[in-house]
């Protein structure tokens, strides 16, 4: 049905109004979707609200989007004025249809900065957009900006700040972190190996959570089931690698005695794994005991189980490589480059592995740049080459891996499983073995 520009304008304005009224009527809308409906029927609005689900009939989208899109751009070019409410409504409509439209998010940033729009509204809008567009890079990017605003505007302290500041701000941050974990989890479930969702999750832990040990342990525990149900999700497994690496970083920067004990392999009481209640009873963050060797052992066991149960998944073999690498380096007191630290007290940049208490030294941002600084040879490449030439200190771990691989090769019937097992062996020999 052909429509004149005037008819389109009238129609679109009505639709935008309907959409925004729907939000006013029901502030608990938690999902948006497109309703396949190629033709308009009678005088019905294309906006459908059922319980907490908002649907847009597809016939109107092709008219709606170009109209609101161009309208916003006219405003941006100062060719047409839009008041604050109109801006809010129009950008909301736009972003639910096309959340990668960066400029629309930027308009909202300006509204937030001028105090016209509450940042929390954009967290909600973003969450909705992600139900339909779980990867949308611009939505995640805008989300990070909003969260940074929220932290700054209330001068909320970071989680590791002690004492003086009240408990309320800390709880607020914890709630924000939890909410973000949920948003990420949902988006991860809606799209396989959702890089943007998982990298956002990491960002949250780094910038809001400040790599707090308790949060890291909680995350390790709460994602275990998820990854077991998504064995092809490389990003999900990488997240666990990140958690473990961060725990290693946090455990070693603490100056508590337990760290020394860890490094000389003295028996220490082990932390109850993943039990939230027990973990929170186990005293405050700094004294939280992290049994790294056991943690790594359990992760490898999880990996073995999954490899056996789900043969032929490259992701599981990649995970094994990562985790074994971490275990190998920890056991042999080898340096772990680029392990993220929250405090940079031991980032002297030297890759010194002779003294037990600095066994896991950290090269964070203090990397020498060969080409620019001439003689100092401390690039990553140099260190890895040195590792390759170093005598093997822990051949037991490697031997066990080789045995595991041989077992699998002997008993598996899946061609891909055999291929991955063989590749893993080759990788071990090339980079960790003799």
């Amino acid at each position: 049905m052909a429509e004149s520009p005037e008819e389109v304008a009238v129609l679109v304005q009505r639709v935008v109004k309907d959409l925004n009224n729907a939000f006013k009527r029901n502030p608990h809308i938690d999902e948006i979707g497109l309703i396949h409906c190629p033709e308009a029927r009678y005088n019905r609005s294309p906006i459908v609200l059922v319980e907490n689900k908002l649907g847009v009939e597809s016939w109107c989208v092709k008219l709606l989007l170009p109209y609101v899109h161009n309208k916003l751009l006219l405003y941006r070019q100062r060719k047409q004025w839009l008041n604050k409410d109109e801006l809010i409504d129009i950008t909301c409509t736009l972003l639910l249809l096309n959340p990668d439209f960066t400029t629309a998010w930027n308009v909202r940033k300006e509204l937030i900065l001028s105090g016209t729009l509450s940042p929390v509204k954009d967290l909600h809008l973003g969450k909705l957009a992600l139900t339909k567009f779980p990867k949308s890079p611009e939505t995640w990017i805008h989300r990070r900006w909003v969260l940074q605003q929220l932290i700054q505007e209330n001068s909320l302290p970071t989680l590791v700040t002690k004492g003086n500041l009240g408990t309320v701000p800390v709880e607020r941050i914890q709630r924000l972190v939890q909410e973000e974990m949920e948003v990420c989890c949902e988006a991860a479930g809606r799209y396989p190996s959702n890089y943007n969702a998982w990298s956002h999750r990491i960002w949250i832990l780094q910038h809001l959570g400040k790599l707090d040990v308790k949060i890291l342990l909680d995350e390790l525990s709460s994602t275990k089931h998820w990854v077991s149900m998504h064995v092809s999700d490389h990003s999900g497994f990488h997240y666990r690698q990140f958690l473990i690496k961060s725990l290693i970083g946090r455990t070693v920067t603490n100056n508590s005695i337990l760290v020394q004990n860890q490094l000389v392999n003295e028996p220490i009481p082990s932390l109850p794994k993943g039990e939230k209640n027990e973990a929170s009873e186990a005293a405050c963050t700094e004294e939280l005991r992290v049994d790294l060797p056991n943690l790594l052992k359990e992760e490898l066991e999880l990996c073995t189980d999954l490899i056996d149960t789900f043969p032929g998944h490259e992701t599981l073999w990649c995970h094994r490589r990562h985790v074994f690498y971490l275990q190998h380096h920890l056991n042999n007191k080898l340096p772990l480059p680029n392990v993220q630290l929250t405090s940079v007290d031991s980032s002297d940049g030297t890759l010194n592995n002779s003294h037990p208490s600095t066994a896991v030294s950290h090269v964070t941002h203090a990397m020498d740049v060969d080409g620019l600084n001439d003689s100092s040879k401390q690039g990553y490449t140099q260190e890895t080459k040195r590792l390759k030439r170093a005598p093997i200190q822990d051949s037991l771990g490697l031997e066990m891996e080789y045995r595991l691989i041989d077992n699998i090769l002997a008993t598996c019937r899946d061609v891909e499983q055999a291929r991955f097992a063989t590749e893993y062996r080759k990788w071990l020999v090339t980079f960790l073995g003799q």
Partner: protein
Amino acid sequence: MKSCQHESGGISASIGHDLTFYIPLVLSRFLPYVVDVIKLWTTYKACKKKMDHLPETNGGTPQKDVVIKPDAPSTLFLEKHADYIASYGAKKDDYEYCMSEYLRMSGVYWGLTVMDLMGQLQRMTKEEILAFIKSCQHECGGISASIGHDPHLLYTLSAVQILTLYDSLHVVDVNKIVDYVKSLQKEDGSFAGDKWGEIDTRFSFCAAATLALLGKLDVVDVEKAVEFVLSCMNFDGGFGCRPGSESHAGQIYCCTGFLAITGQLHQINADLLGWWLCERQLPSGGLNGRPEKVDPFHTLFGIAGLSLLGDEQIKPVSPVFCMPEDILQRINVQPELVS
């Protein structure tokens, strides 16, 4: 790659996974690993034969790869690709066109570059494009994806690439571009994408490539910039978007490109990274961007990938800038590759 071609001339994800351009691009920067690029080439040429010997997927675990059909094209339909790109801009009121307008400048760069690689640049409307770019430069010096959109590093780079292609940098204020890029560098050496502050190694590449094409790399703190990018190197030799992020072919392209431009390719662990990249190749001969990942496909990257693999119908392409080599020769910007 040829079997990904469509009737319309575009190349899509239709066969199920992406032949990511980033992989041949990055691989080609490691000359000792040319053997892997050759392996890609031989695999692609022999794809029909390969197809007969694809491993069976028993045990109920479907492999994320494709089967190339017997009637899949085995020649490259260059003309059709050119037609597809040439007619792309003619749909201004189109819903699809509006949906993608937020990246229009990059779309133009992809389209023009692929046309030039195919020797078909004259079919595009140069004057119109130059006027378009001029109207996309903002007060701050940055350039936006399209008229009325906000400026961003991504589109600033794309614009500079297009203007370099056309030898028409004079239509914009180059000094302001340089100022804009410089203003986006942070204390830790990283670059934000725009004034709102998102950090990503992609933006380090955009900044370095933009400035290198303009001959102004020295206005930023290169040492710090390198430091930041290296802090994003992972244990598998790859790079992510920020420190601690997962290795990703696209990010790897940006980071190795950045390191090539800044003369720091030796900082890469070529063994490890080469290994990771080679593992991106699947039995069908195609490539993915991460383990077990199915990705969308881009016409430019497919054609450029073929160029890197030595297809003679296509002009040589720079693996660093993803632009025709002859253009870079003209402006004398040709970073060293790993040797």
